């Protein structure tokens, strides 16, 4: 046996090998949302096709929906409600599992699917959203697809794909206190570039990975797409099994026992061969933050903004120069002195309960700097309720944060929510692209704890030592 974890999951789903090296794979779960799911379902209607197995198709409202308290179907994007209403109608007509705005299960798709037991170890789950790789944190194989492939998946319960190569990324050793899964993934992308994982399915391994909670593993896998990887997985272990047990869509009774028996086999064989390997000493990782407009523009909190003239690759140098101009930064500026206008905690990367708990630790008894507008958007309605039960909402609100309803919100300005033109934002999200969070916005990606600490200081700063590594 020389199979990797990824090989095993792939093999379990192989319907047939097709001509030309493509595989036809069975898809266990398909998750849709109002922005692209609506188009996929509408297109199916237009073609006169149906959904092969509606029981395995899920849909939530997250991308465009308003997150202000008391929300309705209306959004800041004038036509946003059309996406929501069309999705609702199609989801109900097709009889798929639908989590509407006021449903307690509503939330960001990749927060909801582990929470509800929809994504399971060893399963394949796809969604027309690039961050579906998040679910690798559970040992599920997930990847993002376009609308046409979403249509294909719901119509046939399969997808055609070419099998990517295997890459193992081992984080050896133990991370320092205050260094989170977000810092681990930013560090990786900073070191090995935004295209470093192209053509590969990643397996994250090593002591620093197995030490992570399941929620932090989801954060780690979330940004595999920013590394251009096909997907990422982490072998399920006792923590995973404990996490999945009893969730609404998870198997129960005899089937639970069968599932666990299977999940315990889901790991790479000792002699499995990987096409590429990266080993990172986790103890050397600092809290990280991005300075530019690509997720590879990463520096440690104690570093300075790099000088493009010291980059030999001319294309990279040009991209760095463009980024500096857009970000209104100069080489040599210290990361921990960069002044911020706004702070955002949310998104499928960092909006789960443990992230909010860790951020609240940083905020307890403090106030955000006077010039900083700060917003927290819990990842799901369930996360929000759990946080409120512990009184976290009060800590956020007392510190001067807005406390919102669940959704993708300011991660990407889809519903029109934004801090305003050219604002400089410290953000727990996953993309710092030009204009991603609004016109001319300058986004600095960081962990939720760094966002919270920076909001208080009014400039980018390392989280206060708390031994916490869940944020």
């Amino acid at each position: 046996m020389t199979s990797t974890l990824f090989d095993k999951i792939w093999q379990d789903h192989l319907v047939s090998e097709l001509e030309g090296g493509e595989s036809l794979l069975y898809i266990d779960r398909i998750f849709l949302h109002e922005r692209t799911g609506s188009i996929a379902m509408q297109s199916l209607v237009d073609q006169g096709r149906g959904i092969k197995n509606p029981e395995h198709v899920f849909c939530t409202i997250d991308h465009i929906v308003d997150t202000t308290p008391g929300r309705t179907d209306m959004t800041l994007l004038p036509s946003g409600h059309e996406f929501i209403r069309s999705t609702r109608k199609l989801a109900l007509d097709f009889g798929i599992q639908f989590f509407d705005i006021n449903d307690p299960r509503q939330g960001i798709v990749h927060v909801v699917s582990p929470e509800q037991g929809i994504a399971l170890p060893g399963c394949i789950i796809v969604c027309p959203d690039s961050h579906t790789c998040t679910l690798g944190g559970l040992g599920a194989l997930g990847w993002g697809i376009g609308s046409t492939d979403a249509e294909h998946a719901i119509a046939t319960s399969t997808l055609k794909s070419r099998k990517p190569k295997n890459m193992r990324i081992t984080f050896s050793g133990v991370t320092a206190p205050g260094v989170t899964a977000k810092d681990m993934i930013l560090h990786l992308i900073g070191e090995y570039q935004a295209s470093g994982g192209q053509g590969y399915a990643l397996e994250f391994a090593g002591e620093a990975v197995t030490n992570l909670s399941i929620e932090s593993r989801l954060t780690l896998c979330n940004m595999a797409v920013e590394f251009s990887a096909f997907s990422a997985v982490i072998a399920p272990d006792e923590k995973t099994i404990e996490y999945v047990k009893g969730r609404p869509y998870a198997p129960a009774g005899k089937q639970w026992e069968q599932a666990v028996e299977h999940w315990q086999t889901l790991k790479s064989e000792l002699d499995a061969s990987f096409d590429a390997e990266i080993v990172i000493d986790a103890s050397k990782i600092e809290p990280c933050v991005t300075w530019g407009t690509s997720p590879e523009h990463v520096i440690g909190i104690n570093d300075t903004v790099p000088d493009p003239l010291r980059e030999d690759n001319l294309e990279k140098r040009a991209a760095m120069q463009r980024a500096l101009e857009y970000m209104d930064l100069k080489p040599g500026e210290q990361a921990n002195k960069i002044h911020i206008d706004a702070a955002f905690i949310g998104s499928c990367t960092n909006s789960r309960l443990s992230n909010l708990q860790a951020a609240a630790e940083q905020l307890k008894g403090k106030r955000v700097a006077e010039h900083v507008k700060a917003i927290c958007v819990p990842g799901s309605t369930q996360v929000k309720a759990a946080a409120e039960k512990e009184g976290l909402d009060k800590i956020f609100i007392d510190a001067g944060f807005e406390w919102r309803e669940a959704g993708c919100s300011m991660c990407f300005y889809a519903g029109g929510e934004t801090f305003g033109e050219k604002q400089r934002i410290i953000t727990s999200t996953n993309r710092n692209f030009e204009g991603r969070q609004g016109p001319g916005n300058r986004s600095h990606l960081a962990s939720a704890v760094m966002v919270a600490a920076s909001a208080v200081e009014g400039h980018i700063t390392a989280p206060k030592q708390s031994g916490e590594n869940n944020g």
Partner: protein
Amino acid sequence: MDKFTDHFGLTAPLMRINIDTDAIIPSKRMRSVSKHGLGPSAFYNWRFHEENVENPEFVLNQAPYRDASILLSGKNFGCGSSREHAVWALKEFGIKTIIAPSFGTIFYKNCIRNGILPATLGEKELEQLAESVANSGDKHSMIDLEKKIISHGSLEFSFEIVETDQKTLLAGLDPITQTLLHAKSIDEFISQDRSSRKWAHLD
């Protein structure tokens, strides 16, 4: 889906690396539940300073490139969000082919599903091609998908594309129809899987 066999068109060099799908079609410009009407919003934040005020410095706003149908770009073109709107926007804007050293994985598949050719060419060759286009009066290039060749003036390069994707584009095949040819194997697989991995089935 439309067939793609060959194409003769104006070629524009947009030689930046890591061009993301947010740049190709900003979220805010995805305004309706439709694959159509996105062309005018392609590269919106780069083409326009503000609503309807063009940025004259952006290559696709410059006279020879305004009607480009072939785009040359740096590595990792189309990285980021899975939004197929990026491909629909480019298609409606008139782009038929993108040539880059590498592509965002999801974007690449979305191109194939929509009859757009994502051709891979080495960084050095691309640089040469981009330079040749920029320095010559005639910005037209010829693409032959069957032979996997792009030519500009006297320059000729062989590009790469996965064979099945080449076939799909040449024949204009509809992916769902193709897959439904395997309906029997799919049903057999599911029925077998229902007993071997019963725990994974909700129905």
